[in-house]
């Protein structure tokens, strides 16, 4: 049968209410992600059929309010105003009904065609909360469906309601709070003169101090009374409490008894909480790089084997090198990252879905706040000591404003590839403790660059001041496997698609630089030529040798390539110390630590932000930072 009806549905609600799980249950594999125009906020779309109804679903970001204070809220409000949708499914957490419905009240003011899906009825029941859904539906004036997304309870009923929406059997007559005279006068006025938002919504938001709406009204020459956000919230809260009075019954609710509280006794404890945090961090790091690393190695070995196998059949040296090193090597380096990214996202999604990430952010807030960094950035920063690529991918967990800050900064943390280069170089120059000290210094410099970089980015308006911590600690629950796997898979796929091309093309370009013109000595290659061209730029840093400068270029393909390049250009890493002095190598190491991240990182930045401008700026920013830090090092170790 062909489909006859089309229904466009948006999912809206607070974070941590099972909205994504519902989206996955409804749409299955038929979904894709993109970004909202001009934003790095993720937009998920999918579809499913109910008999002859084709339903398109848009999963809106999880938010707490419809007052615009973040890009997530802006996107939601814009979409509900102009998005051409038929109905909104507002997912709420039954165990947290009051707070969730505070959002619903605002939502109804903006968009009245709302179906309320009361999720996690089982959790509420365990808490001793019983909800009279029929009464709630009558009191709010909208259809209400209860259920448990993860077990599938209530999904069929929800689909039936959607079908009834299409056949016109469902009616929406929402009930609104009475906010008082000032709102009513403004509302009447707006109804007369028109506004892109519904008059009631605009009037309420204007009095809540919403900047966009106040500006909009002022442009129209409408005078807005002094905003009183607290009074409005209070009226809304009291109205809602009143409405809920005989809607839900709390049986024998003992707040001290929940499992969540028991876990939190340890997990948010001023001492044990940090022990747990360090353990979780360690496990996450360990599993990502051993389990993920194991498969990365297998893939690496496979491409190595493939290269060897194929090379026998190619007679031409040039083509053999091109196919094996550039093409197969390029595809290989894209794919070797995927197990690590997959493993990281798998674990992060589990931790996030279970509720731990919010606790970890709360524990780390004070320290991170002192450093001027967003609390949730600690994850990517720690991960960055393993590999910058998953670290950049990990910034997707941050809110848009903070994510921007994150992608510029995580590259400064020395990754394991950089550690390999330090070890090789340091062992040629230093003995014993001195060498260890030099390596530790690089980590400290990397971290210093993160902290200073955050300040500089804010100074130049490239990132906003970090919002102080105000975060919900959701009840712990067993992660929904399907949702975890879907989001892990989608993010990994994003990386392969978005970052893959860039990594592949860069591998080929770098191969050409190193190997062309084919068959000449290393010092006659294009790489050497380019090295000589850019060498003067490095003279102020005291690095006049074009060969050491040249090593920076293949390092763009992968940082560890520096070792091989030094080997080729100097005839072995050991020979380096005959050409380069100790102060020079220190300056080089500082520059090498901080300068332009490898192409896989840039690919990851593009995959996360989907904006070339951010990629370009991050190249520029890290190069400038590296240059300044290296110059200061030069002043210290070589004098003026």
């Amino acid at each position: 049968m062909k489909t006859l009806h089309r229904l466009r549905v948006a999912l809206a609600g607070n974070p941590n209410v099972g909205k994504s799980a519902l989206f996955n249950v409804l749409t299955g594999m038929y979904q894709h992600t993109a970004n909202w125009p001009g934003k790095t906020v993720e937009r998920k779309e999918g579809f499913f059929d109910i008999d002859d109804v084709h339903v398109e679903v848009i999963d809106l970001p999880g938010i707490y309010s419809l007052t615009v204070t973040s890009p997530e809220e802006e996107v939601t409000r814009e979409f509900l105003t102009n998005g051409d949708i038929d109905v909104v499914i507002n997912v709420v957490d039954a165990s947290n009904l009051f707070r969730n419905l505070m959002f619903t009240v605002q939502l109804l003011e903006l968009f009245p065609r709302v179906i309320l899906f009361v999720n996690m009825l089982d959790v509420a029941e365990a808490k001793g909360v019983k909800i009279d859904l029929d009464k709630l539906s009558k009191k709010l004036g909208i259809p209400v469906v209860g259920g448990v997304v993860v077990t599938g309870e209530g999904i069929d009923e929800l689909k039936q309601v959607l079908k009834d929406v299409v056949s016109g059997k469902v009616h929406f007559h929402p009930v609104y709070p009475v906010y008082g005279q000032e709102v009513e006068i403004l509302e009447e006025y707006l109804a007369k003169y028109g506004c892109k938002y519904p008059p009631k919504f605009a009037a309420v938001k204007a009095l809540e101090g919403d900047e966009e709406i106040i500006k909009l009204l002022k442009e129209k020459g409408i005078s807005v009374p002094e905003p009183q956000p607290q009074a409005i919230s209070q009226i809304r809260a009291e109205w809602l409490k009143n409405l809920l009075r005989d809607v839900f019954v709390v049986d024998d609710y003992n707040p001290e008894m929940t499992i969540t509280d028991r876990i939190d006794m340890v997990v948010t404890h001023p001492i044990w909480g940090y022990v747990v945090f360090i353990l979780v961090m360690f496990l996450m790091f360990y599993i990502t790089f051993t389990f993920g690393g194991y498969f990365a190695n297998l893939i690496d070995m496979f491409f190595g084997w493939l290269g060897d196998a194929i090379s026998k059949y190619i007679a031409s040296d040039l083509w053999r090198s091109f196919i094996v090193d550039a093409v197969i090597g390029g595809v290989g380096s894209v794919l070797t990252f995927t197990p690590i990214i997959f493993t990281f996202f798998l674990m992060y999604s589990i931790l996030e879905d279970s509720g731990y990430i919010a606790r970890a952010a709360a524990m780390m807030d004070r320290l991170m706040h002192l450093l001027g960094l967003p609390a949730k950035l600690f994850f990517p920063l720690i991960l960055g000591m393993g590999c910058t690529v998953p670290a950049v991918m990990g910034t997707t967990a941050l809110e848009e404003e903070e994510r921007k800050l994150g992608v510029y900064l995580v590259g400064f943390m020395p990754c394991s590839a950089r550690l390999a280069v330090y070890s090789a170089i340091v062992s040629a120059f230093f003995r014993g403790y001195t060498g260890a000290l030099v390596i530790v210094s690089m980590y400290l410099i990397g971290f210093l660059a993160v902290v200073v970089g955050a300040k500089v980015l804010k100074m130049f308006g490239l990132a906003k001041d970090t919002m102080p911590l105000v975060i919900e600690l959701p009840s712990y629950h067993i992660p929904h496997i399907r949702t975890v796997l879907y989001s892990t898979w989608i993010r990994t796929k994003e990386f392969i698609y978005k970052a893959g091309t860039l990594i592949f093309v860069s591998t080929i370009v770098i191969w050409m630089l190193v190997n062309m013109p084919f068959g000449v000595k290393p010092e006659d290659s294009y790489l050497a030529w380019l090295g000589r061209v850019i060498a003067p730029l490095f003279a102020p840093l005291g690095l006049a040798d074009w060969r050491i400068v040249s090593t920076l270029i293949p390092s763009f393909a992968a940082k560890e390539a520096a070792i091989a390049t030094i080997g080729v250009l100097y005839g072995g890493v050991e020979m380096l110390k005959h050409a380069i002095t100790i102060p020079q190598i220190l300056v080089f190491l500082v520059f090498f630590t901080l300068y332009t991240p490898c192409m896989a990182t840039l690919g990851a930045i593009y995959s996360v932000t989907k904006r070339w401008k951010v990629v370009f700026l991050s190249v520029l920013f890290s190069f400038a930072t590296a240059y300044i830090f290296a110059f200061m090092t030069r002043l210290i170790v070589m004098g003026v």
Partner: protein
Amino acid sequence: MLTPMGVGKEGLMNLEMAPEGFEGIVAYIDGGDRVSQRMMALGIVPGTHIKVIRNSSFGPLIVDIEGTRIALGRGVSSKVWLRK
């Protein structure tokens, strides 16, 4: 009717100073910026019942608002005033 609570800060307890186990009512939130908007969105609204779950010199400040647990930075918590 739109005057919030109509109380000054006399006799109010600042959330940052409130001991663990303290229970009271949110009286007032200083400032009208993004952060106070966010706090209200999460349910820290004048008139609501609040309980301090954790507040020690290390670690986070955690409160319970109508059954929701919320962690707050120390700086923002000092904007919240409570009464018994």
